[in-house]
């Protein structure tokens, strides 16, 4: 009877998870959806506590209390700019849980495991261990504990392929002979190493792809846990998470014009080594100041703002919103053009602007806003570079050629807020900066915008 109750709770939880994700299709239903999913989680946990194997509760309570305290503290105190690193570290935690469960299961059953179970367990610990270290490296890069630039070393690809083949060999040998514990732990060790090697060569701008990919691995590790334990709710929730990460990594790689194969094997990053081309040195840039810019914006009818990672770094989202309010008060319209890979994770810019009280109907996706640029008086690019580089459209020799971009160059005036004339992540010159209709406004985005806001406020 108890077993039926548990299964009923799991079924309800699975349905609530799906309904919850369905709620996320619209901002209006999202919060209610997530509450349903949370109820599902509570049901699954309560159901599990009835499990016949559970004989004592003290350690469960310790884990639940400590975990809740840390989780809640992180969720409440976290600044919105730190969401990408929080996502990375939580993928690591999720993978750690799955891997530890897998190891314990191996200790318990070991040699007695059926080949199918061993295969599932192999996937579980392998995906888990890759995700643990991969996410930790991603976290370290996002948190700037280490340089976010790609790290490369000689024979990188042959070494990675060798490690991969070795791992596959160990996996197969384990399925044939599950009793060999050395191979099992060796495989976990290799998984941890592969995770590091996978993410070290990834530069900051490629983080959205890698985070989505790790998200997918983490989900699949949970799913594999479900196969090992014969637990459907784990299989289902893991599959949902895996599908989500998979879709996001496809979307992100499309938005960066990278092939999916390229993404799947993590062999990206190294290829975008600086290939400086373009008009540097031949043309000059036109720089501007807060007063002139205030006049330009004060009399513009249509303004589009393109936020990039630079806005997040400078934490300038609140100044951006003030600027929007002022322009609108003077009768202009403002919308925001959000490139799919702007920032360090999918949807990063949207969350920051929403935090600053920008209504979400002003946040427009690339495909919807691109036709608007020719009708736009002023485009303001804040800390973005490669996503507005016209070379992606026009220069087949450019490393980013073919990447979908925001057509900022088609607007009547372009203003670029930038710290200095440095190149973007891909190390490519941007012809937009040398366009005669472009004005460069140098400085820290937050300070520059604050000065601009104050000028605009005094504009008659």
């Amino acid at each position, binding site marked *: 009877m108890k077993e039926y109750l548990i299964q009923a709770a799991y079924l309800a*939880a699975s349905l609530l*998870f*799906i309904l*919850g*994700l369905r709620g*996320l*299709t619209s*901002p209006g239903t999202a*919060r209610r959806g*997530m*509450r349903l*999913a949370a109820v599902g*989680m509570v049901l*699954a*946990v309560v159901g*599990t*506590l009835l*499990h016949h194997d*559970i*004989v004592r509760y003290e*350690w469960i309570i310790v*884990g*639940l209390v*400590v*975990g809740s305290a840390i989780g*809640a503290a*992180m*969720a409440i105190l976290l600044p919105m700019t730190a969401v990408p690193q929080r*996502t990375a570290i*939580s*993928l690591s935690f*999720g993978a*750690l*849980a799955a891997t*530890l*469960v897998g*190891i*314990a299961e191996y*200790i*318990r059953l070991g040699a007695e495991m059926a080949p199918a179970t061993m295969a599932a367990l192999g996937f579980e610990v392998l995906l888990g261990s890759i995700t643990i270290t991969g996410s930790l490296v991603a976290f370290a890069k996002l948190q700037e504990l280490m340089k976010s630039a790609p790290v490369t070393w000689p024979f990188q690809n042959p070494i990675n392929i060798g490690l991969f083949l070795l791992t596959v060999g160990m996996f197969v040998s384990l399925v044939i002979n599950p009793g060999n514990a050395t191979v099992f732990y060796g495989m976990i060790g290799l998984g941890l190493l592969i995770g590091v090697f996978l993410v070290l060569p990834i530069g900051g701008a490629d983080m959205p792809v890698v985070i989505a990919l790790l998200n997918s691995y*983490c*989900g699949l590790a949970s799913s594999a*846990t479900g196969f090992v334990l*014969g637990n459907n*709710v*784990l*299989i289902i929730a*893991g599959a*949902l*998470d895996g*599908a*989500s990460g998979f879709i*996001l990594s496809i979307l992100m790689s499309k938005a960066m014009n990278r092939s999916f194969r390229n993404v799947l094997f993590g062999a990206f990053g190294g290829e975008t080594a600086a290939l400086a081309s373009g008009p540097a040195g031949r043309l000059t840039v036109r720089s501007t100041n807060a007063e002139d810019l205030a006049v330009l914006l004060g009399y513009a009818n249509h303004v589009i703002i393109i936020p990039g990672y630079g806005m997040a770094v400078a934490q300038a989202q609140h100044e951006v919103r003030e600027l929007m309010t002022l322009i609108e008060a003077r009768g202009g319209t403002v919308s925001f053009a959000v490139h*799919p890979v702007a920032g360090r994770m*999918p*949807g990063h810019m*949207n*969350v920051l602007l929403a935090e600053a009280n920008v*209504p979400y*109907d002003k946040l427009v996706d690339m495909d919807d806003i691109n036709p608007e640029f020719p009708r736009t008086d002023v485009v303001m690019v804040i800390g973005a570079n490669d996503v507005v580089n016209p070379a992606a459209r026009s220069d087949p020799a450019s490393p980013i050629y073919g990447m979908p971009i925001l057509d900022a160059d088609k607007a009547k005036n372009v203003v670029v807020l930038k710290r200095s004339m440095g190149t973007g992540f891909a190390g490519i010159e941007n012809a937009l900066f040398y366009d005669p209709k472009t004005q460069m406004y140098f400085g820290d985005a937050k300070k520059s915008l604050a000065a601009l806001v104050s000028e605009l406020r005094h504009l008659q």
Partner: protein
Amino acid sequence: MSLTAVLEIYVFLLAGCVGFLTITKVQPLLHTPLMSATNAIAGISLVGSLVLAGADHGTLSTVLGTIAVTAATINVVGGFMLTDRMLKMFKREDAPKKPAA
């Protein structure tokens, strides 16, 4: 391969399809909350960890289980709370705004 394993693969593939169909409809606007939401949901590995921490399979299992419960709970609690905090910020144009500074 046992019948159970086949049925589990059924469940996995069906869930994957449902996930694919549902998640392709999520607007890019909500991709960050989507990631933290699926992260919270994948914290379901808590279910496996709970059994491990509470069962009587020896000290090592209990230690591993307790760490796993802690890690998974951080994701579940943190993930749902953070998702809600983010979703609360998404407002429409006509929604009451904070007074302009």
